[in-house]
Each structure stands twice: as C-alpha cells, then as structure tokens.
C-alpha cells in the first residue's frame, strides 16, 4: 500500500514538473531574438513607458527620443541579436546601423506579456536598389509636346456631319418643287 502511495506521489510530482509554467515567464524575464541577414546590423531596443504606449508606431520613436529614453543597443553576431532579461511591456525596435547595400528594417513595436515572453523574429532588410545611370537629356520647352491623335477630329466630324444631315432632312420641304 505504501508503495502504491509512493508511486502516486511520484506521478503527481512528475506531472507538476511537466505542466508547470515556463520558468522564464514565471520570473518575468523575457527575450527578443532577431535573426538578421545583414551582419553589420546594430539594433536599439527602447522600453516604452506606459503613458506613451497609445502613441502611433510612426511617432513613437521621436517621442521616446524627445523624452531622452535610453535604449539598449546590441550588434549582430552570427546573424543574431538577442535582448534578454526583459520585463513584460511594450518595446520599440530600431535598426541603427546597416550595411551600405541593404535597407534597415522598419522600426516597429513588440509586446512582451506573460503569455509570450520569448519572441523570435526575422525582420526583412531588403537590398537597396542600385541607382541607374541614365544619359542626361535636357529641354527648355515652355509647353509639353502634343502627343495626341486626331481622334477628337473624328468625333467632331461625325457629330457635326450627323447634325447637318438631320437639320437638312428637317428643313427639306417635300411639297416644294
């Protein structure tokens, strides 16, 4: 009987271990891992204070800078940037350095909450289009060239012609010799 109780106790302990919440979440420490193609990347992570969390994403960065909020800055190693020991809250990611031939990724907010404390993402850093080198042609026209066709003349001719025929038929007196 004692063995049975012991076995039951072990099952309960193992089940508790299996279904326990993630220890990182329990501690309130989260992480944001970025996988970036651009090896020269440097990314700043701003913690957004609660009163600023309703500001639109586009205006958020300038507001944070105005309020002199200091970001955590990390550089890319093996195409990965990792911010850890983060508390739940709203964060703003901004790429502060990028390779010359690549565009930085779009500055965007990330929410860490108790249900999702480990975030991994692969922000897109598109290559910058190489600028064309077209020949130089200048003009000093005061009016743009006429590029029309005589389509309007066709319509005008058809309308006026029809009008003349109708007017002629209307004027025609069948009794006049």
């Amino acid at each position, binding site marked *: 009987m004692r063995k049975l109780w012991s076995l039951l106790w072990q099952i309960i302990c193992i089940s508790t271990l299996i279904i326990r919440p993630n220890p990182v979440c329990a501690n309130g420490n989260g992480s944001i891992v970025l996988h970036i193609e651009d090896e020269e990347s440097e990314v700043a992570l701003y913690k957004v204070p609660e009163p600023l969390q309703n500001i639109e994403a586009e205006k958020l960065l300038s507001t944070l800078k105005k309020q002199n909020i200091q970001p955590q800055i990390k550089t890319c190693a093996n195409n990965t940037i990792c911010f850890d020991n983060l508390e739940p809250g709203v964060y703003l990611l901004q790429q502060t350095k990028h390779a010359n031939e690549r565009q930085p990724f779009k500055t965007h907010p990330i929410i860490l909450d108790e249900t999702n404390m480990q975030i991994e993402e692969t922000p897109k850093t598109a290559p910058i289009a190489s600028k064309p080198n077209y020949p130089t042609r*200048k*003009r000093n026209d005061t009016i743009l060239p006429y590029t029309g066709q005589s389509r309007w003349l066709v319509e005008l001719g058809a309308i006026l012609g029809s009008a003349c*025929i109708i007017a002629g038929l209307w004027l*025609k007196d069948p009794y*006049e010799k």
Partner: protein
Amino acid sequence: MKNKIARSLIGIGWILILGALVLFSYDQNDNEMKKALAQQQIERSHQEQKNDPRFFGQLLIPTLELELPVLSTYSQEAMDQYPCLYVSDKDHIVICAHNADSHFGRIQQLGFGDPITIQTTTSSYQYKIEKVEILDADEVERMIDSEYGLTLFTCTPYGVHRVAVRARLVS
C-alpha cells in the same frame, strides 16, 4: 430655296462623316504601323540593339501587355514612330509617346503598384507606379519633377491636358 439649303446641309453632313471615316481609318492604320514598328524593334537581336545609338532601351508595362522600344532623343517626328526619352538625368527619366493604343493611349488605366520595367543594354530597372495625374500642357516643370524616378506621359484623349504616370525605382 429651302430645299436648296437642306440639300447643301445634307451634302456637307455626308462630307463631314466621310472625312471622319477617312481620319478614323488613318488613325487605325497609324496605330497598326506603330505596333508593327515596335514589334520589329523588339525582335531585333540584343547585339543589334546595343549597336543602335538611336535607342535608349525598352519599356515594359505588363499590365497593358506593352513592350516598347524607347528612342534616346525626342522630336515630334521621331515620336510618330516610337516613344521618346523626353528628359533624363542620372537616375530620373521622363518618357513621352502618342496616345495611340499601341503606345501610351491606355496608360490612364494603370494604377498604384503596377510594375514598369526599363531595360537598357546594360541593366534592367523595376519601377512601381505611385500615382497617375493630369497636368496642364504648360506645366513643364511639374512634369519633369525628379522626385519620381520615372514619368511616362501622353495627351488626354482630346489633347488639352497631359496624363502623367509617376513611378519609383524598386530594384
């Protein structure tokens, strides 16, 4: 007397309608000629095109199923045959063409995000349309605005205004 006037009016009417028909068939013929010329030039081998300094490159508008060679200089006579490079500098070009269906006659149907490709002898550039606008014929400065990498323009159907398609370089 009344009948004399009526007969004259009917006669003039028929002449006008006949004239319109002649012009219409001329336009149709001109359109076909432009299409054939463009096709001929497109079919020329790459090497031949490279050696022909008259041409700047090719313009591709998949939405309208248009593939047109572009002349490197502009003149009213040249534009009767092919679209022309009207103004250009390093990374900005303005191309004009007649509003025939085989040239730029349907560019007003283009919309935001439609792709346009410029193929020169050395490179290929992809553009995306950002806006289509109507300008007055004397708004030269606005038309050649370099904020956009590529501008295509032609006359509106009655030739009073100009339709400008603005596109930005994407790759």
